């Protein structure tokens, strides 16, 4: 396998982008990444696009070719493929692009991720997101997506003494980071009290424990590592890539509080990178709900199982902590346009490792880790990156 590096990144602002269409968003992120990489259309060997449910959010399937078209590449007939794995669609697209270069087939690949979620109403968006859960044996009986994560939280509290206040600390930290990110949906710090008193959605999770419904797109350009320096002085190498699956329904899992897919995907990525969790300098993890970040830092091996809540409370994962987590603001504050999220995490890792993250820059960052989850843990993708 050949080494693969990121040579360009592009990101739209995340948020409720009423004046921008699906097509505009992906074209904006893609063209930024292409300009950043200083490549031209003729250099691109393939496109991979991650999107969870363009068919239901904007009633458009077949978006691989559409993205090539809106990017101005139809006449080049570049192979364009859409990849889907619920909220992990973005990272899956990154992995497909990575494979296609690592295999030796392609030299330069553009990867995009997008979701335009606000063209449908709130209850419709909730129903579409619930398709990431088991429709026949969870959703049919009235379980919502926040409800499924809430059941992880209830059990985590029962087994490990995790508190609602510890959950709230995740939201406070991620909003503090989001306030430093010009691309974030929410760029405003919030207080513990605001989170604790927010409207209940599915107990113990309140509105401020949940990531928002967002529009946005992200894009990266991948290149064979041995050719990367022809395009940029700061290529960022993908040194580990792991992926794993589990049952669609939470009730089918070995343990309610552990995302085994995270454990397995992380093991693969660490093994390939030849490093361990203690070597990671900072991480972007899948905090679709506050409890998800607590499970993530445990299942990625940053802290012992059950100690995630206290680690958050002890501020280990804040921007100036020993292991900053979700420097971008995470899904919670940066926003969560589901198909874009996994790609946007790679954009954040690249910006940090290039030392271009501005006010939220992590000092002396060497290894960055990205963790993207589909559903309540049926799919997980982990990437580890390092500056070349």
């Amino acid at each position, binding site marked *: 396998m050949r080494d693969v590096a990121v040579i360009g990144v592009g990101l739209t602002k995340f948020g409720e982008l009423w004046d921008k269409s699906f097509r505009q968003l992906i074209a904006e992120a893609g063209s930024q990444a292409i300009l950043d990489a200083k490549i031209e259309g003729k250099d691109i060997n393939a496109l991979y696009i991650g999107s969870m449910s363009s068919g239901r959010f904007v009633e458009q399937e077949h978006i691989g070719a559409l993205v090539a078209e809106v990017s101005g590449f139809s006449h080049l007939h570049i192979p364009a493929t859409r990849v889907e794995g619920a909220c992990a669609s973005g990272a899956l697209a990154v992995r497909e692009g990575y494979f296609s270069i690592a295999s030796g087939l392609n030299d330069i690949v553009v990867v995009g991720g997008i979701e335009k979620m606000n063209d449908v109403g709130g*209850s419709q968006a*909730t*129903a579409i997101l*619930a398709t990431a859960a088991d*429709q*026949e*044996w*969870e*959703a*049919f*009986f*009235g*379980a*919502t997506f*926040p*409800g499924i994560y*809430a*059941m*992880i*939280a*209830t*059990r985590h509290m*029962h087994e490990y003494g995790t508190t609602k206040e510890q959950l709230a600390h995740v939201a406070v930290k991620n909003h503090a980071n989001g306030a430093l990110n010009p691309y974030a949906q929410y760029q405003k710090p919030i207080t513990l009290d605001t989170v604790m008193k927010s*409207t*209940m*959605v*599915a*107990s*113990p*999770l309140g509105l401020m424990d949940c990531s928002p419904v967002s529009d946005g797109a992200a894009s990266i350009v991948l290149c064979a590592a041995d050719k990367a320096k022809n395009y940029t002085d700061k290529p960022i190498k993908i040194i580990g890539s792991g992926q794993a699956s589990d049952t669609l*329904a*939470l*009730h*089918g899992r070995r343990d*309610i509080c552990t995302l085994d897919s995270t454990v397995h995907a992380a093991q693969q990525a660490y093994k390939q990178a030849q490093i361990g969790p203690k070597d990671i300098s900072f991480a972007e993890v899948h905090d679709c709900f506050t409890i998800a970040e607590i499970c993530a830092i445990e299942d990625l091996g940053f802290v012992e199982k059950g100690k995630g809540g206290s680690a958050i409370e002890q501020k280990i994962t804040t921007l100036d902590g020993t292991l900053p987590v979700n420097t971008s603001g995470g899904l919670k504050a940066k926003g969560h346009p589901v198909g874009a999220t996994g790609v946007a995490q790679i954009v954040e890792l690249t910006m940090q490792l290039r030392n271009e993250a501005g006010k939220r820059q992590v000092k002396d960052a060497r290894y960055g880790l990205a963790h993207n989850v589909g559903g309540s843990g049926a799919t997980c993708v982990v990437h580890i990156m390092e500056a070349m």
Partner: protein
Amino acid sequence: MKEGVARFWRQIPQRYNFLGNQCQSCQKVFFPPRESCPHCRRKSIGKMKELKLSGRGEVVTYTIIHVGPEEFEDQVPYPVAIIKLEEGPQITAQIVDCPVEDVKIGMKVQSTFRKIQQDGHTGAIYYGYKFKKLRQE
């Protein structure tokens, strides 16, 4: 949920009567029934035997849903739980017939046949299982 009628009809044995199955190789019980046992795999093909479950179990975890999907809006707040059935499988279902505050981890429950949801005022009505506190006998 706007399921096709056939899609619901196929699952009536499970949703109405708790019909699961059991691997005759390792004796593990499954609900909903599976085509093969994930532990015994090829050894189990053709050896999965239908089994009616008791509908009794214990709450493993739960949540009170305050913001529900359109089909459940008139029921909020309602408890949803993961229940470990006596025979082994875990399932997701609503807890009914008690104040929401009474739902606890470890609570013993039994299934009850209820209306789950319906496709608008004129659409199909879907029935299935919910759970209530197990009566002490």
